[in-house]
């Protein structure tokens, strides 16, 4: 097994774990974390795309893509967390 194959398969496995969590988890926060895991898996796979034979310099394009992906995911997570907080306070108001 070459290193890039190991990393690639790891990325797919991490994505799959996140996918199961996103579909099956009941808790709202858990589902956000599961989606984060998915994004880490996808990012992993893209980084593997940068790997070339050890002597050559890695391909910079996937790195740029992963950084963009991280930025996108940070904002999406922030929105999801804000919604969860708002929903929690709305539900607390209704219970009173």
């Amino acid at each position, binding site marked *: 097994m070459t290193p890039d194959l190991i990393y690639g398969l790891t*990325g797919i496995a991490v994505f799959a774990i996140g996918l199961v969590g996103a579909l099956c988890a009941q808790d709202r926060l858990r589902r956000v974390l599961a989606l984060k895991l998915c*994004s880490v898996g996808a990012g992993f796979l893209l980084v593997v795309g940068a790997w070339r034979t050890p002597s050559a310099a890695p391909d910079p*394009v996937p790195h740029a893509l992963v950084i963009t992906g991280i930025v996108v995911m940070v904002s*999406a997570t922030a929105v999801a967390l804000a*919604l969860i907080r708002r929903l929690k306070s709305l539900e607390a108001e209704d219970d009173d």
Partner: protein
Amino acid sequence: MMIDPLTLSIFVPLFGAILTFVFPRVATVSALLAVLGTCGAVFVLALKILAAGEVLVPLGGWAPPLGITLRADGLSVAMLAMTALVGLLVSLGALESLRDLRQRQYFWPLWLLLLTGMNGVYLSTDLFNLYVMIEVIALGAVGLTVLSGTREAVRAGLEYMYASILGALLFLMGVGFIYLQIGRLDFAGLIAAEASGATSAALALMVVGLLLKTALFPLHFWLPAAHANATAPASALLSGLVVKAALYIFLRLSTYMPLPDETLVTLIGALGAGAVLWGGVQALRTERLKLLVAWSTVVQIGLIFIAFARAGQAGLTESWKAAAVLILAHGMAKAAMFLAAGRIKDEVGHDRIADLDKSEIRPTLAQFTFAIAAISLIGLPPSLGFIGKWSLMEGAMAAGYWHWVAVTMIGTLMSVAYFSRVFAGFLRFDRMRGELSEHKGWALADVAPLTLAAAAISLGLMAAPILSFIELGYPFGAAP
């Protein structure tokens, strides 16, 4: 140097979004100026397309595969024009209907951000760029969903957010596979690449992600609650425009990476048929007007996928046109219908279908608008919806795929049935408890939805020019 209209149609709404957020005092004026500016840019672009067929702009002068190229052709400009028209009229409608200061303050930046993403999708030629744009759309769309601030809206918005992120991440995973296999992400690279196991897996991931975002049955679970609980202008934008972005990407992908075999095309059509039947049953059962309109969106999305699959794999070079016409027709008619439903709810005070005929207040113009929009959605002549349905059935019959004709017919009958539930409420006067208030419920806010509904009907008379316009620049690669 003259800035080209492609760049402008993405950056004008983006700067508009920033301006309206930073200076809320002048938000309404600057937002309307930004939307008008976008309309102008799209108009100039349409003239260019009529002259040249396609326009390519390598951003910053960098050519692919390293740089990103924007490309416009007949289909993308038709989508841009529909988005601009619906956007302008919904913005005018929102002037009247958003009375709450907080809602007003956040509506404009969110909507302009959404417009940025939509226009970006229609002009991108690069898979990663598309991923970023669908995330931009998702952020704007979720914000609009929860704008009303009620518990139901926030709950539906969170569910939408989960579905949206998951759809985008499935797409991103597909993009990763493509990059590993081909080493390029632009459409030209996709066309040149040979099909392999990895590209099929990538296609599968991307298609599932897009179907989740466009809410094709059985991945539609998030849509009805999200669209029904938003405020009226937000619902109009979400149902009329947002679901079309993922649909458009799907149409494009199916040219650059053809579905590998006939079974998959049939599967897509079968899911569409499921959407038409299940959505129809739910629309017949629902108790609330806005929920009925939302379920009708599920039905129409299904219909668009049946149009895509109408003549199997061999017919894809023609079938996309039927799907595109249905997309345009639904965009205008559904935006009109949601705005009208919002007006009816505002005037009558509730949106329970069963109690509409008990109300002494009859917002006549809004009810009329609702009915004309329904004509296009049902697919009666001469509306644009009729042209779309007709070309769906014509192609299916020519290919001998009678099952698609049957499903479309059943769907049409069901849509007549569920819209009739609403018309009965509009037209019965014998169950009122008091005197009918004459001329109540006419307002300036009725103008925007009425114009949209009239456009959805009257553009059916211009079907031939529209069909030849969307073929400009050979969106589906059949260049001579």
